[in-house]
C-alpha cells in the first residue's frame, strides 16, 4: 500500500510541476516537452488504477501521435522573435476573467452537491459483470455493444475533421512532375535488351 502511495505522489507531483512548467517556460518547444512529460505521468496514474489498457492508449494516441504533430508545428515556429515580455501583461485580464468564471462554477457545483451516499441513484442500465475479464476485454465488451452509437459518432466527427482539414489545405500546384508507377510498369514490354556484338552495332 505504501509503495503504491509513494508512486502516486511521485506521478502526481511530476504532473503538477510539469504542468506548471508548461505555462511558465519561455520556450514553446520546452512547453510541449513538459506537456508530454505530464501525459506520461498521467499514464502512470492509470497504471496504478489497474487501467493498463487506458494507460497504453493514452501514450500511443496522445504522446505517440498527437503530441508529435504538436511538437512538429511548434518546432517550426520562429519563437525567438515572437516572445515579448510586454505582450504577456495584456492577457492578464482575460486570464483573471476565465479563472473567476471557473472558480464560481466549481463553488456552485460544490454547494449544490450533497455528499450523501444514500442519495446516489442506481444507474438505469448497470454495466455487465466484469469479473475475470481483462481490462481490454471489459472495455471492448461495453464499447462495441452498449455505446456503439457514441463510438461511431465520434469516429464520424473525427473523419469529418480530417476530410475538412485536407480539403482546406489542398491546392493544385502547376509544373509538378509526379511519378506514376503504373505507367512506369507498363513500359516493361516496350523495352528490348539487345546483346550488342563488338564492331557491329544494332539496327534501329
Amino acid at each position: 500500500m505504501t509503495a503504491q502511495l509513494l508512486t502516486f505522489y511521485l506521478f502526481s507531483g511530476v504532473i503538477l510541476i510539469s504542468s506548471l512548467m508548461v505555462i511558465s517556460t519561455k520556450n514553446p518547444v520546452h512547453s510541449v516537452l513538459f506537456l508530454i512529460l505530464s501525459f506520461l505521468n498521467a499514464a502512470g496514474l492509470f497504471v496504478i488504477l489497474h487501467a493498463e489498457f487506458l494507460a497504453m492508449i493514452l501514450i500511443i494516441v496522445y504522446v505517440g501521435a498527437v503530441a508529435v504533430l504538436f511538437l512538429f508545428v511548434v518546432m517550426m515556429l520562429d519563437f525567438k522573435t515572437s516572445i515579448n515580455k510586454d505582450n504577456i501583461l495584456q492577457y492578464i485580464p482575460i486570464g483573471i476573467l476565465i479563472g473567476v468564471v471557473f472558480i464560481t462554477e466549481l463553488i456552485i457545483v460544490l454547494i449544490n452537491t450533497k455528499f450523501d451516499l444514500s442519495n446516489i441513484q442506481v444507474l438505469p442500465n448497470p454495466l455487465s459483470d466484469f469479473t475475470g475479464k481483462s481490462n481490454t476485454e471489459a472495455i471492448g465488451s461495453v464499447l462495441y455493444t452498449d455505446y456503439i452509437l457514441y463510438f461511431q459518432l465520434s469516429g464520424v466527427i473525427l473523419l469529418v475533421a480530417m476530410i475538412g482539414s485536407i480539403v482546406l489545405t489542398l491546392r493544385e500546384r502547376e509544373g509538378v512532375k509526379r511519378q506514376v508507377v503504373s505507367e512506369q510498369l507498363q513500359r516493361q514490354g516496350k523495352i528490348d535488351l539487345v546483346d550488342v556484338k563488338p564492331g557491329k552495332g544494332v539496327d534501329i
Partner: protein
Amino acid sequence: MINLVQTYFIEVMTIILYCLLIFVPLLLGVVMALYADRKIWAAVQKRRGPNVVGPYGLFQVPADGLKFIFKEIILPDGSDKTVFLIAPIITLALSIAAWAVVPVQAGVVLANINVGILYIFAISSLGVYGILMAGWSSNSKYPFFGALRSAAQMVSYEVSIGFVIITVLLCVGSLNLTEIVMAQKTMWFFIPLFPMFIVFFISALAETNRPPFDLPEAESELVAGYQTEYSGMPFVLFMFGEYINILLMCAMTTILFLGGWLPPIDIYPLNAVPGFVWFLLKVTFVFYLFAMVKAFVPRYRYDQLMRLGWKVFLPLSLFAVVATSSILFFFNLAPGM
C-alpha cells in the same frame, strides 16, 4: 519507514538483478549485431570487413566504443544544451525499457503484463522524441531536416505496424506476449499471415531507420541527419539505442510471426533444446535478413517512401484486418467465441 525498507528491499534488489540480466546480454547482443552487420555487408561486397582487432576482428566494436569514450563531447554554440544532452539518453532508455516485456522462454520475462504488445508499441512510438529533440536542439539545418523526415517516416509506418499487430491479435485473442507465442503452437503465424509478415518486416526496417529507409541520416543529402552535431558518448548512446531498437524489432518479428521460443517441429531432439536458444536463433536469422537488405537494396527516395507507407501498406493492412476478422468470424475460428 524501516518496515517499508524491509518489505521492499529484497523485491527491489531482485528487480535490479533481473534488469541486469536483461541489460548485460543486450549490450553483448548489440556489440555482436554491430560486428555481424559490418561483416555481412562486407561479405556481400567481397570485402573482408573488420579483421584487425582481435581474432577475426571480433574486438573491433569494443575498440570503437573505447575510442568514443575518450573523445571530447562537443556542444554546439547555438544549441539548446539541456535538450541536446537529454535526447540521446531518452533514445537509449526507451529502447532498453521496451525489453522489459519480451519473453525469451516460457515464463522467463521481467514483466509478464496483460498489455505487453501495446506496451512495446507505445514505447517504440515514443522513440521519435529522441530524434526530434536531437534535431531541433542542434540548431542546425541538416539535423533539423533529418529529424523532420524521421518523425514523418516513423509516424507513417507505425500506422501499418499497428494494423499488422491487430491481425495477429485477432488470431490470438490476447495482448499478452507469452500467450501470443503459445497460440502459435500448431502453426507459426507467418504461414497463414504471410503478406502481413512481409508488411511487418518492411515496416520494421522503416521504423528503425534502417537502409533502404535510412533517409533521416542520408549521408549524401543530410551529412548524418539528426546526429550530425553529436560526438563522443552521446553519439554512442544514439547508436546503441538504434541497434537495441533493431534487435527489438527482430524479437518482435520472432514473437509475432516465427513462434518465439517454440521449436520448428515439436519432436524429441528439437524440443529438448532450451527455448531461449530457439529464440536467439530466430532473432539472429531475422537480423541476418535486416543486414542483407542493408547490403543489396538501394536507398528509397522520400516520396517513394511515403507512397509505400500510405498508399500501399496502409490499404493492404486495413484490408487484411477486415479479411482476417471476417474469415475468423465465418468459420468460427476466432478465439474466445
